[in-house]
């Protein structure tokens, strides 16, 4: 048989340590793939016995790329367990921080982690700056600096950089690979925006700094937020701080609407074949988020919760994180054991006990018939699920939400693609952009809601009635969920005698990068790689494209 096994390890331009092994058939098409998370830190173990009010800080360190989302899920699970309802301002500020994170993370992902899969840096050297300016102006009339001079400078910069012989981050890559389809001018434009986005991302996150004191890893608080608001104080969130937030939002608006979205659509239009590859599971899940009243009121979410099975957009199933029969994690292909002997456990009963059975390093290959990863395999009612921007866009779209329908239809119209094109690598990448577009609009709305509430004279940001552990029940359990940039995120906690008794985390990338389960159902990465033809197995651009379309975060996934 003419099969060939290729290994991509490390998969770069992601967060964390991911290994992909793909088995190609004799036509160079991927037949099967395994996705392996090759690091584990043991946060769930480390959290046991600690003060639940501290958990957010530990959890936040699960990942610095999606920083804040674990802190958010964590404070929510503790608040759920202790039945704390946070003040309205705190809910809105958390929404603002949430949306800020989405916008920043998605833009970084597009330009700095994903773009080089589509953009050939070297080809940009032969671009004509004038033609590039014309192209840039046509794709984005709203962008102000798209002049020939600007692109001339960028090209020059790039040329000297390449001439220096020290190619740094860009060396030894797949430049000139036949899978790169962009004209030189589009490549140059993308290089310019790579640099612009790098410069800009450090601005938007200042919103986190204002409310949370720093980014990465801003501070959260069980019961609300620590950033006191007092419009008459020079030592609290006041008008100057709020104005800065507003400015940063406006600035983000410009970057997303006039740079990211036009670039995304322009690049996508050159790769229509990538609407055919990378389809994946066809099952999608969203926990929903951005509550307009409070997190316990799912009907008030801006991002709806729900599940789509088998690409059937006419039915949205309900997801319940408390139902012990719905979400479960199993470990038949994972380096763990369940001391209880169970096959599969709901997170409230979850167990984390490592048991490495893989090959001793250094090793050449993993064995797909045995355990091969540090990820557990989460399943919803036994189904493998894809989570993330595409899942959210589809659930929102299928739920009939106007915001979602508008952006999806507009983009499909521009690209002249049917809705089914979304079930693909390119669909995933596009969904991330469309979501960002929604997010900047929501950011403005949330900012205005904050101001409106402040106008009513309500400046409270923290509820401290349950702050003291001595007031807690002897035992309590809670679940905190959010939508992280990469998808549905849940933290489950059990508190006993003022301490964490059990803490289980099920992360978006755990869903997407999960290994096969006992029934042999693959996770989303593995499923999406199947059927992809590879032009040159030694230059795995195709694998990178599909895997990057999920925006992997392995530190998250394994935790």
């Amino acid at each position, binding site marked *: 048989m003419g099969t060939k096994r290729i290994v991509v390890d*490390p998969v770069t331009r992601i967060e964390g340590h991911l290994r992909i092994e793909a088995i190609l058939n004799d036509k160079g098409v991927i037949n099967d793939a395994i996705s392996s998370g090759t690091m584990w830190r*043991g946060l769930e173990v480390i959290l046991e016995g600690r003060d639940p009010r501290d958990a957010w800080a530990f959890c936040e360190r699960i990942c610095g790329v999606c920083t804040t989302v674990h802190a958010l899920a964590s404070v929510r699970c503790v608040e759920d367990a202790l039945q704390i309802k946070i003040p309205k301002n705190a809910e809105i500020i958390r929404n603002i921080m949430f949306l800020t994170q989405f916008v920043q993370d998605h833009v970084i992902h597009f330009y700095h982690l994903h773009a080089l899969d589509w953009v050939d840096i070297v080809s940009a050297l032969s671009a004509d700056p004038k033609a590039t300016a014309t192209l840039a102006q046509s794709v984005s009339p709203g962008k102000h600096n798209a002049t020939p001079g600007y692109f001339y400078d960028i090209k020059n910069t790039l040329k000297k950089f390449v*001439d220096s012989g*020290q190619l740094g981050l860009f060396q030894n890559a797949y430049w000139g690979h036949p899978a790169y389809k962009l004209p030189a001018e589009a490549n140059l434009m993308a290089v310019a925006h790579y640099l612009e986005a790098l410069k800009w991302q450090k601005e938007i996150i200042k919103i986190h700094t204002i409310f949370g004191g720093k980014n990465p890893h801003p501070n959260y608080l069980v019961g*609300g937020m620590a950033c006191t608001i007092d419009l008459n104080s020079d030592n609290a969130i006041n008008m100057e701080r709020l104005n800065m937030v507003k400015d940063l939002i406006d600035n983000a608006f410009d970057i997303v609407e006039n740079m990211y979205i036009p670039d995304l659509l322009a690049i996508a239009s050159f790769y229509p074949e990538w609407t055919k590859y990378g389809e994946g599971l066809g099952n999608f899940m969203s926990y929903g988020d951005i509550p307009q009243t409070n997190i316990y009121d799912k009907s008030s979410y801006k991002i709806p919760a729900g599940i789509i099975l088998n690409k059937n957009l006419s039915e949205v199933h309900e997801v319940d994180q408390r139902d012990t029969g719905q979400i479960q994690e199993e470990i038949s292909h994972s380096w763990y054991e369940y001391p209880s002997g169970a096959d599969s456990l709901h997170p409230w009963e979850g167990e984390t006990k490592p048991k490495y059975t893989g090959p001793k390093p250094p090793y050449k290959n993993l064995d797909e018939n045995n355990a091969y990863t540090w990820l557990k395999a989460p399943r919803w009612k036994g189904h493998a699920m894809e989570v993330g921007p595409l899942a959210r866009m589809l659930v929102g779209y299928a739920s009939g939400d106007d915001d979602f329908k508008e952006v999806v239809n507009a983009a499909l119209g521009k690209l002249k693609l049917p809705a089914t094109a979304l079930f693909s690598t390119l669909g995933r990448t596009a969904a991330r952009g469309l979501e960002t577009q929604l997010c900047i609009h929501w950011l403005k709305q949330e900012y205005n809601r904050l101001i409106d509430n402040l106008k009513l004279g309500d400046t409270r940001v923290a509820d401290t009635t349950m702050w003291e552990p001595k007031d807690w029940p002897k035992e309590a359990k809670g679940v905190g969920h959010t939508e992280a940039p990469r998808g549905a995120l849940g933290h489950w906690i059990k508190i006993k005698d003022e301490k964490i008794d059990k803490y289980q985390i099920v992360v978006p990338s755990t869903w997407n990068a999960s290994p096969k389960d006992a029934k042999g159902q693959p996770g989303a990465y593995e499923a999406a790689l199947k059927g992809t033809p590879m032009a040159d197995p030694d230059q795995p651009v195709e694998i990178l494209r599909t895997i990057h379309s999920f925006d992997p975060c392995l530190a998250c996934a394994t935790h």
Partner: protein
Amino acid sequence: MTDSPKIITTYDVLKQHGVSRRSFIKFCSMTAAALGLDYTMVPKIVEAMETKQRIPVLWLHGLECTCCSESFIRSSHPLVQDVIFNMISLDYDETLQAAAGHQAEEIRKKIIKEYPGQYILAVEGNAPTKDGGVYCTIAGESFVDILEETAEHAYAVVAWGSCASNGCVQAAAPNPTGAQPVHELITNKPVINVPGCPPIAEVMTGVLTYILTFGKLPELDRFKRPTMFYGQRIHDKCYRRSFFDAGQFVEQWDDDGARKGWCLYKMGCRGPMTYNSCSTIKWNNGVSFPIGSGHGCLGCSEDNFWDNGSFYNRLSSVPLPGVESTPEEIGKIAAVAAGVGVGAHAVSHIISKTIKNAKEKKAESKPEEKE
């Protein structure tokens, strides 16, 4: 691209970017200012930038959260693109590099071979040492091995963040993977610890630019931290210090004191125990820092900061086996016990004395009766 690598200096690169000599000198003086140096050092910086090829940097990721990278790219002065494209040659960094798989690993091996003793090894995260290093592997190799292999020929090792400098979250009790900071594993190379979870962006770029411009390592303290950024505690430079000195403290989240910006000491602030530049340089180009936004410092640049009990308590439980109490509680109990002890002794002394006296009286009166 070119087969014969010629020496292209940082100044060449800037020149090719259209930077005039005047603005180049200005750039150097600004670098000096950012590093806290006086103007007499400017010619040295100029010379360094004019004569040196960009130093290769290999940036490894072990057990970590990639937040140090995220922080690094937030640098405002110098801008991160200036650092990674003009000042250094960031040859290997899984998070950002274009190449993947064996092409990526080839770069690492090539730099080790072609630039022995000349490249900087930057490490984010740390190495699990338990069970043969299986808790972190890259390209099938254990991270411990990769770290040792790459450090072997490095000019110096920069340990980014608390993970690399002191272990951080995965080394918190019970440290399930046996995670160890870099300086525990690499002992034959200069290691610079740049702690913080993550460190401030400008601190990170400041450390790198210092090495590049002066061609030597910055002054380090006994924890191998650059004194220029870790020479003082948060508390010594905190803008809420006047409230601390006055005795005015936030007693509860969102209370009146909080609105007035009073000191967060009683909310568990670790500023008095933490060496970092947060209260001077601040975060994200000076916008704020944890205390500036109402939450106490977690002490994120200090050794062991995860295992000091709740972040919201000023003092932890006494770390003795079987003890779950604060020094205050233990002290009070011991004092009461001592009081009860001496009280009991006094009472029994009085009782026994009374009995003895009574006996003596009897003994004295009896012979009288006989007589």
